[in-house]
């Protein structure tokens, strides 16, 4: 029971360990996802800060253009009542803008406008563009003309620009503004991506990517980001943070700070998360983590549990099996009467008790029981017979049946109804009392169909002569098959009886045995009677009896009687003559005490 409990403990421990592993995996995955979300939020904050700083740097850089005398003079002239300057003046201003713009280096604009106080474009970087263009209703320009430095993002003819505007004043009044735009492209994404290691940064316009930078092999690819753009935009619209765009990839999207956000311009930062599976639980394990493990608990507790389990197994099973093995070996050698049930517990004890019960009942293999119940007396006699006695019953020199052929069958004690002896009545050649009541139904017929009995045991004589006699059980006695045969002889032509399981086998009271025992004289008379009957039967069978003397016959009967008595612990033995294979044969019936 304890060992089974131990199996339960092991199973529960395994289940707990697995559950813990899975819970740990889930917790680790959640933690990793949480960390990734937090990282993306920080990325967005950092990107915003960087874009803010970048906008400020562009605004400051525009000062070089806004304070340029030629710019101020031209814009002042344009803002006067005189109107738009002549084309030549505008072209010169364009050249000046190009020169000044080139000096901005990293802040060099892709689009620069010089507008007068009415918002009319006086000059651009393209000196050939002298069109009548106004920008006065653009919020960026309007604010710049009011005196503010401001940034914005524009969609301008299909491209997206980061804009910056700075007012131009001359003579104590505002005369215009410088409008500066830088195209949003891969360069901007790269510069921003450098601030966000291992992240992919893209800028999008609607559902198109207009700039991208992949931050190394551990960052999501551009196509992964593009595929997840729709879901990221959905999350952005719902005000959520990052969204999952791949098996372990998340991204966060944000609109650009500017008017172009209305057109769907924004940026997105994507990152790959840590792989956390059952195998990935240890992916992020460091040697410090391993070193910090409580090894005494990791190794000691399972070891103690293992030893406890082995001890329980030994106590419950191995020990009992060992006892059974040793005792069964001893039992097989005949040194033990039974298995030591007292030393065993529970099932093993029950097994031993059952085996002992079977041993006491003499239950054996069916075939062995049949062999035991019908021991050819000749076999027994042959073991005690010397060479000179060979053919004692067979009269070998006269071609008479050998001792083997003239067999004497041994019969066990047949005790019938309880308390009724199987004393052989006087004047009969069998051990069966004349009118002994038995459980046998009247008429001598069994209620069950008689099992056909072989007329002669087919056990090969040489083999049996070499082996030991089959051990016979001591208590209770085996049902005397021979007597059954003899009973079968009553009224049966073949002289064999039939097995009858309803016949009760029991001990015969000693007083009855004594009464029925013929004693020394009775035995002599019994031998004489058997001898005469044997000779008579031989003659009737036409067999020769030459050489057969009573003394020799009696000597053999004594020898046979001693063996049967010893083997069956019988008080005496009764012999019966019958015909077997056309010759007289003897059957020995032990009479129990």
């Amino acid at each position, binding site marked *: 029971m304890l060992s089974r409990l131990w199996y339960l403990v092991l199973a529960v421990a395994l289940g707990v360990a697995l559950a813990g592993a899975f819970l740990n995996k889930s917790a680790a995955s959640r933690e990793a996802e949480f960390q990734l979300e937090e990282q993306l939020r920080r990325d967005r904050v950092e990107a915003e800060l960087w*874009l*803010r700083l970048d*906008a*400020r740097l562009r*605004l400051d850089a525009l000062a070089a253009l806004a304070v340029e005398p030629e710019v101020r003079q031209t814009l002042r002239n344009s803002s006067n009542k005189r109107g738009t300057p002549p084309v030549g003046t505008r072209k010169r201003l364009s050249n000046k803008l190009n020169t000044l713009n080139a000096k901005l280096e990293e802040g060099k604009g892709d689009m620069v406008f010089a507008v007068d106080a009415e*918002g009319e*474009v006086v000059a651009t970087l393209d000196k050939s*563009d002298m*069109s009548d*263009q*106004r*920008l*006065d*209703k*653009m*919020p*960026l*320009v309007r*604010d710049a*003309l*009011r*005196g*503010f*430095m*401001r*940034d*914005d993002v524009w*969609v*301008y*003819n*299909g491209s997206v620009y980061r804009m910056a505007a*700075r*007012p131009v*004043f001359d003579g*104590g*009044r*505002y005369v215009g503004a410088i409008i500066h735009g830088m195209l949003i492209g891969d360069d901007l994404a790269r510069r921003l991506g450098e601030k966000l290691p291992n992240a992919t940064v893209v800028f999008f316009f609607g559902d198109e990517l207009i700039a991208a930078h992949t931050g190394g092999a551990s960052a999501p690819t551009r196509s992964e980001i593009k595929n997840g753009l729709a879901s990221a935009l959905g999350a952005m619209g719902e005000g959520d943070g990052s969204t999952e765009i791949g098996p372990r990839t998340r991204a966060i999207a944000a609109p650009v*700070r*500017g*008017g*172009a*956000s*209305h*057109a769907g311009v924004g940026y997105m930062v994507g990152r790959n998360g840590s792989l956390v599976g059952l195998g990935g639980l240890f992916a992020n394990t460091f040697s410090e983590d391993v070193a910090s493990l409580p090894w005494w608990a990791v190794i000691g507790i399972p070891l103690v549990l293992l030893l406890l389990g082995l001890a329980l197994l030994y106590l419950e099973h191995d020990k009992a099996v060992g006892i059974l093995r040793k005792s069964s070996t001893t039992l097989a050698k005949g040194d033990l009467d039974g298995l030591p049930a007292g030393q065993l517990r529970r099932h093993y004890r029950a097994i031993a008790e059952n085996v002992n019960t079977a041993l006491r009942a003499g239950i054996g293999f069916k075939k062995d029981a049949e062999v035991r119940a019908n021991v050819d007396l000749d076999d027994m006699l042959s073991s005690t017979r010397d060479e000179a006695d060979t053919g004692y019953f067979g009269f070998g020199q006269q071609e008479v049946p050998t001792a083997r052929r003239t067999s004497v069958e041994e019969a066990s004690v047949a005790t019938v109804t309880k308390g009724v002896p199987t004393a052989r009545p006087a004047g009969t050649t069998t051990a069966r009392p004349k009118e002994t009541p038995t459980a046998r139904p009247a008429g001598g017929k069994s209620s069950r169909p008689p099992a056909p009995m072989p007329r002669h045991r087919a056990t090969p004589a040489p083999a049996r002569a070499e082996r030991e006699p089959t051990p016979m059980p001591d208590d209770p006695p085996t049902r005397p098959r021979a007597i059954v045969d003899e009973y079968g002889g009553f009224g049966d032509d073949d002289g064999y009886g039939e097995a009858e399981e309803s016949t009760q086998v029991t001990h015969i009271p000693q007083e009855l045995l004594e009464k029925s025992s013929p004693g020394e004289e009775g035995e002599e008379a019994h031998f004489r009677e058997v001898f005469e009957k044997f000779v008579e039967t031989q003659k009737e069978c036409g067999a020769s009896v030459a050489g057969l003397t009573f003394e020799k016959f009696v000597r053999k009967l004594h020898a046979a009687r001693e063996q049967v008595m010893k083997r069956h612990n019988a008080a005496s033995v009764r012999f019966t003559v019958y015909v077997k294979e056309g010759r007289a044969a003897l059957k020995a019936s032990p009479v129990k005490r």
Partner: protein
Amino acid sequence: MRGLRTWTTLAAAGTAAVLMAYSGASAESVEGSVRQAAPAAPATSDGADYYWKVWNGALPEQPRRADNDQLLAVLTGKFTGPPIGCTFSFRGGSLDPSTIAARAGTTVRIQNKDAFTHELEVDGLPGFTPLESGPGAVRAIPVPAGGPWKLGDGYYGHVEGYMHSIRELVACAAVGASGKFRFENVPPGPYSLRILRGTEQVAVRRVIVPPGKALQVEPLALKSGRK
């Protein structure tokens, strides 16, 4: 006394008939103005559209201009000819003006006079699809009865306007930054002068355009109301 009233009525009717008779023969101008109100707030909130909007540190900032972009003056009356002056455009980066009107059942044309592309949007107008309009391109809008409809731009969030469908629309005129407006080539006759701002009519006056001379309308006071 009663006879005098009768004769006055007859005289007015005769004058109207004469004016109507002359209407096919002459066209006059109508000038007017609106009293300047406080500058309206920008159409769209630009509070989150920038990282920086800082004073330049040298000159004080200019006050917001009252550019009256949201005002549109219209004449309505019995006139079957095509609406006069009712052409609109993108100019300076937005609709100019942002309130437009068209006669129900006709088509209004909006030209892009900017150097960059716009994408006009009309909310709730059946059958209208926003399309890009490059520099110089004209977008025609079929105007059914009903309205007004909100206008926008797919690229520029600051662009906002309204389109009115008026059954007896005669002429349209933008209101300048100074508050003045001017109708040209208006046939003589009685009309209703209306000032529209956003979705509502903020001023109305009955006028009679005389033949042979321009009509100068007294300044109109605008009702306060939502944009």
